């Protein structure tokens, strides 16, 4: 799940992390009012969409740039009116762009120095790991590659938490002056509490800035949340903006299905994430392109399977469907019944290849036979993949 910049700012403020003064607006009037509250300083207006590359983006109305630095509340209003309700196209949105429904109005920080600071859950050590660098505001991966000595790493004990000496050490390593050090350590501590308090798998601040006035601020933060822990954080779960997501994925998540849309033409319905990935791999191996990743999970019901099938069929790019089920907890007859139900409600217009194995396989095959659904059966995974690739190719020509 991704959140907007203004939401990230709200979360940081909740944990006492210093950010620039600012608020989100839905109308030009609101934007102007916020600007007046902030006072007589340079201001920045930022279009709120999940995609990156906003600054260099263009609105479909011709207005250039999703990020503008302006001098007055009146200008804030003008810029906001050109952004709100308009579609912004950046290199990450695709040509269709994203509609901007909100803008963030904030004080424009006068930056003296930029720092990179992230906290993530490190798999290898099974502990939080702070990764920081004096080279902020740039592609941090390039820094890590060219000059690894500029990347600081600090492991945190999972039970004891971040210790004061560690924040002091980091402040020293990152070159904070004695005057700035207190603000820096307070910010690091706040970020760590945010990371733990919200069950994040990553919080990345890029850049963390020192202003010309000597303030230490988190200018922009990217959050990765642990989906498994969202039940503990309903306020974070409520920040989800489905308008920013692939509509196929939104529909799938309504039915508790794990679906990721891709660009190919062979749809797959599989149980288990590993087998689902492996099924995509074997489609590609035989010269096809998967249209999606779909794991119906272990305990899916007939209804969920039916809904999953509807999502696959609704994708206009799809030229063939491959069902690959190895029943463990998932019973093959449930899958079969789901397919039959879906075929009754939606017209099946592309070839369907089915490979069933595992729990209740005979019952499942029997149901499909009697259910009157036109399908191609396959004996094993290799056979199924080859048949699906062949069917999709025949359809495409």
């Amino acid at each position, binding site marked *: 799940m991704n959140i907007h910049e203004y939401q990230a700012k709200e979360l940081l403020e909740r944990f006492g992390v210093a950010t620039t003064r600012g608020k989100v607006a839905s109308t030009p009037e609101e934007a102007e009012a916020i600007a007046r509250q902030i006072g007589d300083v340079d201001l920045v207006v930022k279009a709120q969409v999940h995609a990156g590359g906003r600054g260099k983006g263009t609105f479909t109305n011709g207005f250039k740039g999703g990020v503008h630095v302006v001098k007055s509340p009146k200008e804030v209003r003008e810029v906001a009116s050109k952004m709100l309700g308009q579609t912004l196209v950046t290199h990450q949105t695709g040509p269709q762009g994203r509609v901007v429904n909100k803008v963030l109005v904030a004080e424009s920080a006068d930056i003296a120095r930029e720092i990179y600071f992230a906290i993530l*859950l490190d*798999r*290898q050590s*099974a*502990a*939080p790991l702070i990764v920081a660098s004096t080279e902020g505001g740039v592609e941090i*991966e390039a820094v*890590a590659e060219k000059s690894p000595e500029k990347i600081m790493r600090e492991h945190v*004990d*999972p*039970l004891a938490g971040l210790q004061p000496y560690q924040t002091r050490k980091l402040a020293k390593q990152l070159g904070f002056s004695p005057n700035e050090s207190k603000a820096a350590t307070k910010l690091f501590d706040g970020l760590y509490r945010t990371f*733990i308090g919200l*069950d994040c*798998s990553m919080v990345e601040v890029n850049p963390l800035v020192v202003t010309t006035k000597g303030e230490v601020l988190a200018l922009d933060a990217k959050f990765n949340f*642990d*989906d*498994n*822990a969202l*039940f*503990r954080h309903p306020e974070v779960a409520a920040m989800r903006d489905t308008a920013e997501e692939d509509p196929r994925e939104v529909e799938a998540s309504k039915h508790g299905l*794990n679906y*990721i849309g*891709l660009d190919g033409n062979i749809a797959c319905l*599989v*149980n*288990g*994430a*590993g*087998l*689902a*990935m*492996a*099924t*995509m*791999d*074997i*489609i*590609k*191996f035989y010269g096809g392109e*998967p249209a999606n*990743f779909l*794991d119906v999970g*272990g*305990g899916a019901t007939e209804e969920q399977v039916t809904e999953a099938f509807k999502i696959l069929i609704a994708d206009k790019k799809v030229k063939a469907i491959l069902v690959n089920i*190895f*029943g*463990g*907890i998932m019973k093959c007859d449930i899958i079969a019944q789901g397919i039959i139900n879906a075929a009754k409600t939606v017209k099946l217009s592309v070839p369907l290849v089915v490979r069933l*194995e*595992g*729990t209740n396989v005979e019952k499942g095959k029997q149901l499909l036979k009697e259910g009157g659904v036109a399908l191609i059966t396959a004996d*094993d*995974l*290799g*056979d199924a*993949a080859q048949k699906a690739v062949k069917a999709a190719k025949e359809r495409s020509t």
Partner: protein
Amino acid sequence: MSVLVDKNTRLVVQGITGSAGGFHARQCMEYGTNVVAGVTPGKGGQMFGGKVPVFDTVWEAKQKTDCNVSMIFVPAAAAADSILEAVDADVDLVVCITEGIPVMDMMRVKEQMRGKKSRLIGPNCPGIITPGACKIGIMPGYIHKEGNVGVISRSGTLTYEAVWQLTSRGYGQSTCIGIGGDPINGMSHLDAVKIFNEDRHTEALILIGEIGGSAEEEAAAWIKDNYKKPVAAFIAGMTAPPGRRMGHAGAIVSGGKGTAAGKIEALKAAGIAVAETPATMADTLIAQMKGKR
């Protein structure tokens, strides 16, 4: 002929009165697993299936039945606590089937388990099975066959795929361990390889991995220097788009590390035969076994 679990295993099922826990406890018993106790707080004193006593705590179950392995079917929000409860009762092995446990909970569990006697398999895993002797988990029993191939896997259904391929070709399994796909879990690929290395009856290994993390690379490095028997492997996620999370929290590709290509390269460098597709996992191992003889 096996590792970790066998005919002598005395199993306690945590969450035995729940629908999934009950269903799979019964399936395990039908397979021949010796289920000696169940635990559900507040349900102590009941009998499960007319013959398995249910206790309020694992501590009590251990005292009364001397159970030595636990299988956990407790809902995700409480599962981490259940793992620690089993560890506190000093069982040898904890097999946690539950999926969806918050990763911070597992981080704390892992830290608290340091220095303890209990080993952990999972969470978010199919479990462990020694064919013909003991099934602890949710895998379909009938696809397995007694034999000498060890199977280690991060993915449930992909394990079944490998096992079925082996069985269909007449190759049985010594023990199959599903270590689970979460980013922080108990036993790693390497831990499992070391355990199989101690078992002289296990003649070959299939190692199934996924994109994300570096567990497969670590196992490969150790195998290169220490494990002399034939090993075949498969890595799922060759075509997964980078930076996307795919179901298993483990399947995260980040910063160029943990890619399928990188893992395959590390495995091959260790002399491990890597299956080109998931349909040829058993054939790849069999070819390797014939080559090494």
